[in-house]
């Protein structure tokens, strides 16, 4: 059997649970009765509000403006009225301002016809991407226009598209690659025009064989210079550092970006959003969200307007089968547990999961026995056990000296810890307190 490429150091193999939802075609969630649209849906500074309470808005209208270089615009998903501007708590515990919008009952949605874009220059394309508020949809929500701005003198060797979707349960990108193959590919070609890479690679984990086949077939049909690389299934391959290691065998040094090793990394969801932004001038106002988890009655992949409340999504999926142990926004490895079903879907929400307590998942914590599994699992070459101990003893300085900031909280260490120590929680705490 052919040995598929993957990244070399660390990683874990959680049960992917994708079969729960990967044959569910993407459905549209009906327009909910109320949308809550936070101004901070991305990494970086929150957008500043352009409207106020009582204003009428139309679908696609810019209602929040990027407030600095690393920031993104926010657009209104529907025609309707702004009924409130208030503080909300997002799933990741961030507190931010949000518009509460009541959609126009008769005609809530806008129309986005396709427009020609071949004549546009790379600069114009980039400007459109920025104007449409596109951010990375993989979860990190880094503003895409920043990522695509190649500084002068830098050349892009490889454009690597992330179709890995390594988080268990999530199937949103998978469905997108299957159902919107052509648009995803065209989105990639737009990015290629902006950044001018020497080669283009789509990395897809081998548990999505149908998507790989579909991509290859469409690429051949459209004649695009894109290679589809099937990757060995291993978490966290979807992280850009691991993905670059797996596809182009390069390691991004600590604190650097993909551009520093001559690469641009982009999610398939993002490239789809870029296609819509460029070809339809449609801002990022909806996204595909996976509804899954054992406690969910029906598992679905939904195209959801941003600002829809989690409660609406769950209701559309037939509600809960039984009381879940945890609600999670995002994937189970890096996603956030939340308790309030009134939180909204934002640009980075890739899934809403209702998980059952697995018998092994929550055994009581026991003392660390220095087994070294976390060290073996850490894809960044850190020593989570030692860092955790140092953080426990409030020695943040030494933890920092041991490269605590390299930790990206992928969860491999906690996942593999037989003592069930909350290692990632410790890393987050250490980073927060150590920075002070």
């Amino acid at each position: 059997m052919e040995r598929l490429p993957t990244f070399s150091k660390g990683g874990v193999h959680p049960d992917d649970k994708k079969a729960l939802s990967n044959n569910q075609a993407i459905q549209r969630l009906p327009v909910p009765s109320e949308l809550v649209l936070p101004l901070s849906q991305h990494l970086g500074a929150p957008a500043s509000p352009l409207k106020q309470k009582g204003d009428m808005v139309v679908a696609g209208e810019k209602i929040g403006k990027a407030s600095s270089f690393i920031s993104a615009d926010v657009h209104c998903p529907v025609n309707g009225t702004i009924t409130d501007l208030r503080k909300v708590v997002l799933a990741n515990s961030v507190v931010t301002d949000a518009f509460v919008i009541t959609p126009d009952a008769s005609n809530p949605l806008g129309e986005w016809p396709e427009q020609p874009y071949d004549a546009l220059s790379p600069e114009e394309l980039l400007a459109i991407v920025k104007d449409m508020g596109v951010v990375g949809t993989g979860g990190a929500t880094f503003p895409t226009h920043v990522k695509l701005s190649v500084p002068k003198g830098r050349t892009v060797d490889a454009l690597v598209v992330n179709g890995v979707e390594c988080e268990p349960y999530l199937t949103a990108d998978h469905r997108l690659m299957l159902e919107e193959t052509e648009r995803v590919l065209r989105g990639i070609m737009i990015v290629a025009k902006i950044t001018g890479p020497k080669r283009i690679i789509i990395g897809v984990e081998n548990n999505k064989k149908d998507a790989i086949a579909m991509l290859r077939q469409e690429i051949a049909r459209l004649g695009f210079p894109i290679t589809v690389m099937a990757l060995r299934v291993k978490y966290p391959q979807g992280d850009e550092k691991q993905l670059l290691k797996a596809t182009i065998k390069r390691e991004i040094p600590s604190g650097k970006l993909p551009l520093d090793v001559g690469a641009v990394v982009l999610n398939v969801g993002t490239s789809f959003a870029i296609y819509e932004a460029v070809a339809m001038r449609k801002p990022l106002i909806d996204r595909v969200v996976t509804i899954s988890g054992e406690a969910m009655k029906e598992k679905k992949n939904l195209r959801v307007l941003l600002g829809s409340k989690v409660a609406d999504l769950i209701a559309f999926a037939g509600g809960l089968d039984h009381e879940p142990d945890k609600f999670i926004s995002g994937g189970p490895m890096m996603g956030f547990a939340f308790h309030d079903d009134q939180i909204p879907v934002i640009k980075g929400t890739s899934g809403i999961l209702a998980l059952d307590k697995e018998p092994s998942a929550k055994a009581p914590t026991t003392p660390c026995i220095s087994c070294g599994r976390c060290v073996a699992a850490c894809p960044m070459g850190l020593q989570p056990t030692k860092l955790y101990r140092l953080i426990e003893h409030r020695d943040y300085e030494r933890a920092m000296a041991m490269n605590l900031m390299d930790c990206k909280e992928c969860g491999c260490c906690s996942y593999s810890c037989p003592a069930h120590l909350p290692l990632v929680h410790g890393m987050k705490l250490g980073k927060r307190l150590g920075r002070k």
Partner: protein
Amino acid sequence: MNILFAFLIIAVLGLALGLGLAFAAKKFAVEKDERAEQILAILPGANCGACGYPGCSGYAGALSGGKAQNGLCSPGGAKTSALVAKILGIADEGAGERMVAFVHCRGNHELTKRDFQYEGIEECSAAHMLFQGESSCKYGCLHLGSCMRVCPTNAIHRDEKGNVTVDPEACIGCKKCTLVCPTKVIRMLPARGSHAIACNSRDPGPVVRKICQVGCIACKICEKKFPDSGCTVINFLSEIDYAKPMTQIADAAAACPTKCIVEAKQ
């Protein structure tokens, strides 16, 4: 004869060493921190290394440089540490009004509503990272006892219900607990203060009433009915001004509908 040799040889050795050292003491006289010298004179000079520093001079240097804790010298004992403190002037610390730490919250899992169950590190700041803690009140005590663990005198205790209190007698006012508390529910009070407000919530009264039985609901009874209690309600929370005369504070405490004015010395 033998005795003479013995005398001579050791005399020569001694003389050489004595001259050498005397010479060296002059020649290599290095300017030294005077306080370090003074401390060195006090330290026993056993150079036993028990303090963890390389010899008495190392410890003296660290002490005068403010890098070492006083009282590590086991041969010298308490006497030495007292003298060292005198030289360093650390005994003067704590002069002025004695302040003690106080936990401005009496809520617990029985009296205060919770949004969810927290699972994770037994550390307040860790819990605070997730929706600012499990309690519906985001201003109160998280009950995970980080303050207890940083307290150098074990002055902070937690009862079986989760209520955390500071023993004002044992508190030395180091403020370590106030620094580690993510909700800043521990603040310093003058040790003479008889009462304190056991609530930290800035939520409006109706909100507090819904989530906590012992929170300040900003009813202003203390402020209005007992003007000499020292209490003022600011931002939905009653606060005591300890500079004011607090003659009516006990009455105000009795009248408080949620009993969140409590005696500071339990």
